């Protein structure tokens, strides 16, 4: 993109760019297929398609299929959510965890696991997680907005987000310390992050929530482009900036909370995958949001496959693998491409 600055305008250039992006999406689609294959072929019980004739083979197959869908949903949610937070806060360090959203969702989920459901089973965990995430976001906004008339500044938002996050993790630790042995194992595993398939009903509810949120964010994607220029420009460009920011924050929170309620505290995906996709794809959110979603899903599925086979038959929590495996790879990409994504 940068190299072409001296060349005179070339009318073909734009269609080239579009073709490039088309090719990018084809590549992403292929990567889904690849992730699907890897996910089905790898597992603690051995490499290869399990024998579908046997009962155990069938069970293994459906288990692996479930892991694939869990990985795609959680990874896509975290990554798309991070992309939107970074755009709204105009800050490369923003992610679902920064505004305390994940912390709040985590607290809600821990309460739901340890204290028990106050709502009928299938909705208990995701709804509690989402409610707590929203409460946290509201608290962060209120605290950050204190003392000034207008909307809170990015810096005060991030600062109060970090504070609220810390409070949430203290509360989670308190809950963990008072938990029974059985509850303890569940909640620790959940906190480390793993993609044990949730109940089918919870998966369906989550899928609907994720689909709604992604579609809503896609609808707002062009407005997000303008918002990266700041609230003032967005106003001049005929956007109701405050309403769009509010809606997008709500949807990104919904994504993050759903992901946390399904897969626990999985770090790294929401922060780094958006950067890599932005570096590869460019900052236009109309394509970046779907690209991030796919990229995050594929990345998490691959990490999960690794998590299952590395020290089989034992399983490593996928939250451990994401940063360990992804870190070096993404560092390599970002070192070369960071300037194509952010100029700060």
């Amino acid at each position, binding site marked *: 993109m940068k190299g072409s600055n001296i060349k005179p305008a070339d009318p073909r250039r734009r269609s080239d760019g579009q073709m490039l992006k088309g090719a990018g999406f084809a590549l992403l689609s292929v990567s889904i297929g690849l992730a699907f294959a890897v996910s089905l072929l790898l597992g603690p019980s051995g490499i290869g398609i399990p024998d579908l004739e046997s009962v155990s083979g069938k069970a293994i197959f459906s288990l692996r299929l479930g892991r694939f869908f869990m990985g795609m949903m959680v990874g896509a949610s975290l990554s798309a959510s991070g992309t939107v937070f970074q755009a709204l806060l105009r800050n490369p360090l923003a992610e679902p965890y920064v505004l305390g959203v994940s912390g709040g969702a985590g607290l809600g989920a821990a309460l739901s696991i340890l204290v028990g459901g106050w709502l009928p089973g299938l909705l208990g965990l995701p709804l509690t997680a989402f409610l707590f995430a929203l409460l946290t976001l509201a608290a962060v906004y209120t605290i950050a907005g204190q003392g000034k008339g*207008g909307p809170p500044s990015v810096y005060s938002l991030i600062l109060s987000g970090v504070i609220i996050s810390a409070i949430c993790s203290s509360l989670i630790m308190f809950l963990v310390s008072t938990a029974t042995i059985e509850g303890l194992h569940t909640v620790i595993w959940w906190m480390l992050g793993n993609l044990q398939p949730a109940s089918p009903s919870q998966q369906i509810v989550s899928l609907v929530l994720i689909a709604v949120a992604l579609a809503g964010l896609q609808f707002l994607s062009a407005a997000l482009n303008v918002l990266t220029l700041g609230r003032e420009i967005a*106003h*001049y460009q005929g956007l*109701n900036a405050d309403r769009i920011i509010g809606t997008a924050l709500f949807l990104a929170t919904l994504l993050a909370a759903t992901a946390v309620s399904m897969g626990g505290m999985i770090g790294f995906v929401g922060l780094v995958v958006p950067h890599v996709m932005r570096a590869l794809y460019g*900052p236009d959110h109309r394509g970046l949001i779907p690209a991030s979603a796919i990229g995050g899903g594929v990345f998490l599925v691959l990490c999960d496959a690794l998590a299952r086979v590395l020290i089989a038959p034992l399983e490593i929590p996928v939250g451990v693998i994401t940063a360990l495996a992804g870190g070096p790879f993404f560092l390599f990409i970002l070192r070369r491409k960071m300037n194509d994504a952010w*100029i700060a």
Partner: protein
Amino acid sequence: MQTDAIAFRSVSAGYRKRPVLQDVSFTVPEGEFVCLIGPNGSGKSTLLKTAAGLLRPSHGMVRVFGYDISALKPRLRASLIGVVPQKIDSPMAFTVRQIVMNGRGRARRSWGVPSQEDDDIAERVMIYTNVLELQDRLFNELSAGEQQRAALAMALAQEPRIIMLDEAISHLDINHRQEVLRILMKINREKRLTVLLVSHDLNLSSQIADRLLLMQGGTIVRQGSPDEVMQDRLLSTVYDCDLQVRKDPLTGSPVVTGMLEGSVRKQAVRSRLHVVSGGGTGIELFRRLSIEGYDVSAGVLNQLDSDADAARALGIGCVLEQPFSAIGPAAIGQAAEMVSQADGVVFSRVPFGSGNLVNLDLALEALKKGKPVWIAAGIEERDYTSGREAVSRVRLLESQGAKAWSSMHDLLPEIARKCRRMT
């Protein structure tokens, strides 16, 4: 009846706890080219933000083509008004073309590609503003002037009926500034585009504008044709410095020049002034007198007084008394010594109490030796002595020749006249 493009009706606006605009009323008919001028902090940008609906008036009403701006739908508002702000920051790596396309609201649909018409309009405004060659460069890597041209292109791409520019041509070099202005004037003439330009360049403004709005302290102090607004006395008062207006022999439009060179030359022979102040009331005097080239001394001040800090920072000789104590005979003796070496004495708007009343004796000292003394007007409001002693002393001093002063703008020429004659 023709509706005005912009109409302010007794508008007050600003930020919480800091109102800026006070009771501003004016109208701009469609197709007019208006320049908004005034010193820093006079409220020009605030007025522009209020006109664009970004700030809501706390009182009064802003109408744009008859619509109440705060009730206008955002999309309609953007089709009426385009704004080029002082600076745009694009932290993400958007290209110039992507930035300009933002101006085409319809092209911002989240699905599908922009129409041929949107592409053509973006292309046209980029040609107008000479950024077509930059279209694939990253916006944030451009120079300030190039960014301003791209920002103008984005606003023009909205095809608005009013365009507002907030100091948006300040970073342009002279040839691009002329070009941009020519484009604005062309669209202004051909399509009746209404232009509201905030500018610090008085000469440029009077050359291009149909009408000037001159702001000071959150109000419009004069509006009219360049000839009506560009008056030495008016501008000198508003900008609080010596300005001369004459006709440009080529264009016939009024041209302003400051007196920078003249004032420095005048001070070839230095005179010394003694300032009596306290509690921060002397800082502005220190600043202005030092800039004008006078030697300044000050006192008697208490240590820890903000004037004492300012005097030390500016290297001004100063007689000091212990903090929070009444001024003693030793200090006042030293100050009298300083006064005897000075060519005049100026009293700031310092409040008087029993502790510093003795400073007024310095004025008597000076008057006795035939030196001019200026005392800030309004002593009644800052006399905290029992028995109104400061008031009666100042009255006595005034009967012996001390002058009252109320604005820096009047005081400085007065000092220059009196003290130059003496040296």
